[in-house]
């Protein structure tokens, strides 16, 4: 019993260290070749990321892979980044995880994922060069995953309400204002209910309140952090409901009279395709975004199949279909051409041209992601507690 308790505590400690970014030494040596498949690969993924044609036979990027490699794909859907971290920590069950930037570094720091040998990924060179060495999966020059897809938190708005004067600033969701239809924005805007949204407030303050000296919205000192919380408290009085899942938000645009909100191209794309008057913009302050990376468990039970999947995950057909399915920008830009669903402008609609205006999710750590002394920045666990308090009206 005692030994078990110690084990559990160690696991908890690892989980907790994960939040702070103290990197552990990688103990595994890199594989030099991909051997025969183990017959199976188990992937932790966002809903809709691993499709085998269950819903729509046109969206199937698994069946062919299984036939070609003999690796049967199983997947576990995770609802949040934090659930992904929890699932991967200490797991000997899962091989891969499609981690967003607010989870990936925690996974690396916690030793839950292993460095991968990019020489074994034939299509690595086709990956968008802007993503190849991205800081959310590359630590000390080591690669901990293969980019999968990325998307932005854009400002979505009802184009009927805004008419000829579309918004160009996040101010419409942060400050009380009158919309072109003559009514206040109160009760007609939404905000994302994840703690990472504090970064959106910080990004807005970065332009509107330069004295705060915010450089990176994921690395906030106490003063900057409190300013962001104050802004969010004002927002609370304007927000009817915070959005949590994409479908409920689409309902809210359609049935609740929501006029403007941070959203994903996914929602605006589907609503537009249903003929709903909606548009989206990357406001002048810029936007946050998420970039997902397929990462490999440090104790992956089926490493060869995992490597085969990582290679397969970069094929342009899959990348293009996924980008259409999810309103994202593919990690392989070649996927933007000739995809039957995306069409010629699909990638541009999803934002492939606006990459430079986007600040991708990172996990806030107390040493400002390794750029300052510990204790300088406000760590993520406080973001969670405080954001919950803000939503509760505190």
């Amino acid at each position, binding site marked *: 019993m005692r030994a078990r308790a110690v084990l559990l505590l160690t696991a908890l*400690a690892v989980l907790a260290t994960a939040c702070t970014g103290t990197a552990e030494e990688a103990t595994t040596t890199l594989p030099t070749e991909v051997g025969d498949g183990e017959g199976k690969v188990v992937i932790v993924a966002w809903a809709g990321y691993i499709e085998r044609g269950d819903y729509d036979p046109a969206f199937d990027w698994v069946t062919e892979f299984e036939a070609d490699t003999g690796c049967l794909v199983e997947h576990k859907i995770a609802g949040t980044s934090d659930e992904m971290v929890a699932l991967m920590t200490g797991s000997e069950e899962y091989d891969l995880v499609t981690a967003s930037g607010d989870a990936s570094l925690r996974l690396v720091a916690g030793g839950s994922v292993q460095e991968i040998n990019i020489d074994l990924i034939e299509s690595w060179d086709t990956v968008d060069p802007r993503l190849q060495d991205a800081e959310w999966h590359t630590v000390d020059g080591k690669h901990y995953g293969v980019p999968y897809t990325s998307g932005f938190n854009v400002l979505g708005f009802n184009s009927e309400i805004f008419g000829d004067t579309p918004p160009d600033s996040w101010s419409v969701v942060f400050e009380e204002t009158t919309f072109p239809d003559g009514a206040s924005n109160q009760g007609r805007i939404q905000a994302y209910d994840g703690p990472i949204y504090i970064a959106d407030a910080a990004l807005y303050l970065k332009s509107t309140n330069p004295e705060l000296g915010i450089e990176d919205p994921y690395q906030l000192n106490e003063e900057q952090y409190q300013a962001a919380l104050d802004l969010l408290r004002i927002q609370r009085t304007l927000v009817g409901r915070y959005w949590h899942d994409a479908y409920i938000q689409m309902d809210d645009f359609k049935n609740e009279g929501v006029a403007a909100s941070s959203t994903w191209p996914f929602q605006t794309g589907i609503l537009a395709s249903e003929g709903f008057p909606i548009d989206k913009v990357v406001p002048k302050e810029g936007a946050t975004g998420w970039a997902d990376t397929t990462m490999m468990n440090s104790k992956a039970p089926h490493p060869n199949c995992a490597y085969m999947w990582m290679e397969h995950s970069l094929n342009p057909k899959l990348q293009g279909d996924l980008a259409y399915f999810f309103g994202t920008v593919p990690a392989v830009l070649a996927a933007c051409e000739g995809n039957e669903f995306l069409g010629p402008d699909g990638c541009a609609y999803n934002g492939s041209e606006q990459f430079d205006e986007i600040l991708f999710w990172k996990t806030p750590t107390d040493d400002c992601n390794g750029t300052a002394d510990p204790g300088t920045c406000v760590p*993520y666990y406080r973001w969670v507690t405080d954001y*919950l308090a803000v939503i509760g*009206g505190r």
Partner: protein
Amino acid sequence: MTDTSTRPPLLHRVSTYLHQRPRLRLLLMIGLPAIWLVGVYGGSLLALLVQSFFRLNPFSGVLERVISLDTWNTLFTGANTAVMIRTVSMAAVVTVACVVLAFPLAYFMARYAHKKTKTILVLAVLIPLWSSYLVRVYSWKLILAADGIINWFVERLGMEAALEAFLNVPGIGGPSLSISLFGQFLVFVYIWLPFMILPIHASLERVPGSLLEASADLGAQPALTFRKVTWPMAIPGVAAGSIFTFSLTLGDYIIPTIIGDSSPFIGLAIYSYQGVAGNLPLAAAFSFVPIAVMAVYLTVARKFGAFEAL
């Protein structure tokens, strides 16, 4: 009892043996459930309690395995107590509403419905339990939305002004029914209602019709009969049902994310601290709020005979 001779004699011997040794028989009966519930379940709860005395380092967020009361201190800061008060008040209001709505139906079923009608009614109360909780909660989203089903009828009846006035009531109103506290309340009541109807019905079934007739024969007005005879007999059922409605509201974390104004409830707070923040000590400490509330509640409910009516 003609088949006794075909029974293996061993069974006879065992049963006679046990019959003569009530202690051993009790041990055998109680052993498995006790290991399961006290050992596994009780042990799990205890492990959870222990973890609430660990803490996160306030600067780095690293878990520190030292016994401290820090986590419990954080638990009782303003934001968290607000969550507790909100949740417990909602649970109380939902419970009262469930009693009010459940009683007439349960009473009708127990007292007036004939055999066939009664069967149909019991099934009608059971059916919602069988259809997916999630799908039903999502369907309320559309029912309550600003351009949803209720509104569709309100518009056709020309009662927009009344709805508008209602939504302007501070505290319970909001931009639309589905974003209001009142809408959330409606969904909670809806979802837990069968858990109240069934025990009330069961305890009313046990009220002999003759008792009520006697009361009437002795000249009691219906209201008096209700107050002095029916209600006291129903109290154990009400108490039993309220254990469900109260506890289910305390812990639910799905309804508040779908309906209402996103204000956090205890269940949601525990879920976020555990999953999102990796703050297991705080999640564990928070878990003991509903445990404490329910402990008090059960003690009171027991006085009212709830355990005999569950």
